[in-house]
């Protein structure tokens, strides 16, 4: 199974219009991503934790994501301070591990985590189909949205196909190892996947044309903008301005 949105219980976040969540998530992420001040990053992290708690996101799913990101992020406090000039914390053979570098690295680690939590709460709770629809409502190029809708629709189908091919290879005694035979087998397996996906796309196009496809989809899920969504946007705007003020005052 491809892990889609973390299944989360109904919460007030889930009731907010996906368009609002998308825009708020994007803007707040942008501000956090460029922030370099302690206070702004700390406030962002606090808000992100609060939103995750409010969205009642299960800890299990979140933990896996956080581990994945932190494997890379925690490399930074090890490497970065050596190449940032500043007050030395300790030194080895002419190289200086600087205080400023450690501070910069820790800010990056904190905001990396804050953004993951923020996105998990706001956008991670939107299912893929609603996401595509929300994007079309937000006036993204039509072809791009169609590409996204089709990709999302067939991701699971092709994933199952790949697993079927892999199982078939295993039944015939294939065992993956760091050997030439493995690379040979995998390249054929993936080649089969590509060829079958192209064949499938031809059948899809023929079937769609037979049903009168003329280059556009009619969206059925129209979202309903309510006063709650407006209030959420205003609150988010205030918070984003507070973050920006802390960063650039």
């Amino acid at each position, binding site marked *: 199974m491809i892990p889609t949105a973390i299944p989360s219980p109904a919460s007030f976040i889930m009731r907010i219009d996906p368009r609002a969540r998308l825009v708020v998530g994007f803007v707040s992420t942008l501000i956090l991503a460029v922030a370099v001040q302690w206070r702004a990053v700390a406030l962002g992290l606090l808000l992100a934790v609060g939103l995750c708690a409010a969205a009642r996101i299960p800890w299990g799913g979140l933990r896996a994501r956080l581990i994945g990101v932190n494997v890379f992020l925690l490399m930074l406090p090890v490497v970065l301070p050596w190449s940032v000039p500043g007050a030395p914390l300790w030194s080895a053979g002419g190289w200086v591990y600087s205080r400023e570098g450690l501070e910069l690295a820790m800010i990056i680690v904190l905001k990396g985590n804050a953004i993951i939590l923020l996105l998990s709460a706001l956008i991670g709770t939107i299912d893929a189909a609603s996401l595509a629809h929300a994007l079309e409502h937000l006036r993204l190029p039509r072809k791009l949205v169609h590409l996204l809708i089709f990709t*999302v629709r067939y991701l699971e189908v092709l994933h199952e196909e790949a697993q079927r091919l892999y199982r078939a290879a295993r039944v015939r005694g294939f065992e993956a190892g760091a050997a030439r035979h493995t690379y040979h087998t995998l390249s054929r397996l993936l080649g089969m996947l590509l060829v079958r996906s192209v064949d499938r796309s031809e059948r899809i196009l023929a079937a769609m044309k037979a049903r009168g496809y003329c280059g556009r989809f009619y969206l059925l899920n129209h979202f309903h903008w309510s006063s709650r969504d407006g209030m959420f946007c205003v609150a988010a705007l205030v918070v984003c301005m507070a973050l920006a003020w802390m960063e650039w005052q």
Partner: protein
Amino acid sequence: MHIAEGILSAPVLAGGAVAAGAGVYAGLRALDDEAIPKTALLTAAFFVAGLVHVPLGVGSVHLVLNGLLGMILGWTAFPAILVALTLQTVLLRYGGLTTLGVNTVVMAVPAVVSYYLFVPFLRRRPRPALVFAFGCAAGAAGIAFGALLASGALALSGRAFYGVAALFFAAHAPLMVVEGIITGGLLLYVWRLKPELFLEQERTP
């Protein structure tokens, strides 16, 4: 190959977003309505291929396959890669939302380059051994060029990141070898079964 959120500086993020936007615009112009299902299914197939653990030494790596993707999709690799990266960000938490632009450029530019480098060669119907060799070259070059662009983006974000950039580039050496071997076999296989995939139409804006 993914640069995570919150590391790059604002000008680099903005530059990446603008470059990716231009590439995606060009790619969408090259994309016929009728080619949307095929492009989307290939995008999904490459996404799935990227989930496979390929054993290497004691560990394993994930494939990117941007060299081969470019040979098949041409300029439409830009929107395809943007869609794949968006889904990876939303579904798997690789990369990030603000780094989408930079990451798209990092993977799609080598893809388009490999389209211009290797597809004219395929049009001359070469021998299988040569197809395999050029597949290897396209796969390895796709990663090497991509890692170079990513390291460049890191280095442009400040002197402080020079060390990280070098480490990032070095970490991609094993992936380069595996991608080369697999792309070689993959290209030869697809080329034998469906040569029209590479020859059918011009994928340029």
